[in-house]
């Protein structure tokens, strides 16, 4: 092995330009929402600028048979990994997060639906995103999202809308992650415009 090969071996592999099913769904929701809503409402998950890359919303295909509807894992860096296996029991997930001191409102939004009213808050904290991608190792264990509770300041609340599609082995999920500094309207599911 020459020096070049040895150095190359030390480098991380180049990221794959692969759009996971969950990210695909999220992006489609974003695009379709943008073109169907007038006036344009705030994007649910602006993956915006490079600086936000690590905090951008993440989604992935979720597979599952029987078992828990979700899993919550504390990470050494203070983030929390949430995996959704079945589109049910958002209240339980919300309670799990709050038990960790993570003030969050959790809703599940099936395909073709959206939360009403919009906007749910008039005090969104701009530029704050608290969902980031899982590690590749985590993705192998199913879809999930790394959430950073430190992004939620005193008196603020994270508003997490998990967009879910399909069920069981084919379930896919995306996330809308925003932070509100004031009251948040309850999510009533209504049909999304075709």
């Amino acid at each position, binding site marked *: 092995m020459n020096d070049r090969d040895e150095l190359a071996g030390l480098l991380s592999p180049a990221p794959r330009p692969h*759009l996971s099913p969950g990210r695909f769904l999220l992006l489609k929701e974003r695009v379709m929402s943008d073109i169907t809503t007038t006036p344009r409402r705030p994007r649910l998950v602006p*993956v915006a600028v490079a600086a936000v890359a690590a905090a951008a919303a993440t989604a992935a295909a979720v597979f599952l048979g029987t078992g828990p509807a979700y899993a919550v894992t504390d990470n050494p860096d203070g983030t929390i990994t949430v995996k959704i296996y079945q589109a049910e029991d958002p209240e339980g997930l919300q309670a799990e997060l709050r038990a960790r001191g993570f003030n969050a409102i959790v809703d599940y939004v099936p395909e073709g639906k959206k939360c009403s009213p919009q906007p749910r808050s008039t005090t969104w904290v701009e530029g704050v995103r608290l969902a980031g991608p899982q590690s590749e190792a985590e993705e192998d264990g199913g879809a999930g999202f790394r959430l950073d509770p430190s992004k939620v300041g005193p008196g603020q609340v994270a508003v997490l809308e998990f967009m879910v599609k399909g069920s069981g082995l084919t379930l896919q999920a995306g996330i809308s992650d925003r932070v509100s500094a004031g009251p948040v309207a309850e999510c009533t599911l209504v049909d999304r415009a075709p």
Partner: protein
Amino acid sequence: MDPSLRARLRDGDHAAFALLFDEFARQVYAHAFRLTGDRAMAEDVTAATFGLAWRSRRKIKPDGDSLRPWLLGIATNAPRGPRGPARRD
């Protein structure tokens, strides 16, 4: 591409646009990733591309081949964040 789909796109048919997205979003994303080297920015470029495509849908000719070159062209010139778009217009 099916001429009727082109017509539906021109007419602002959301379902037709969803089909367009389904067919080409991954290719646009891969192209955008090559341009930006960043997943998040590639998603932004992809979203911007389809947004621009929607607003430019009346430019779609009634007949023709794949709309892929058109979309990739939009992606190449789409804004890429605060450090500057690749716009050439």
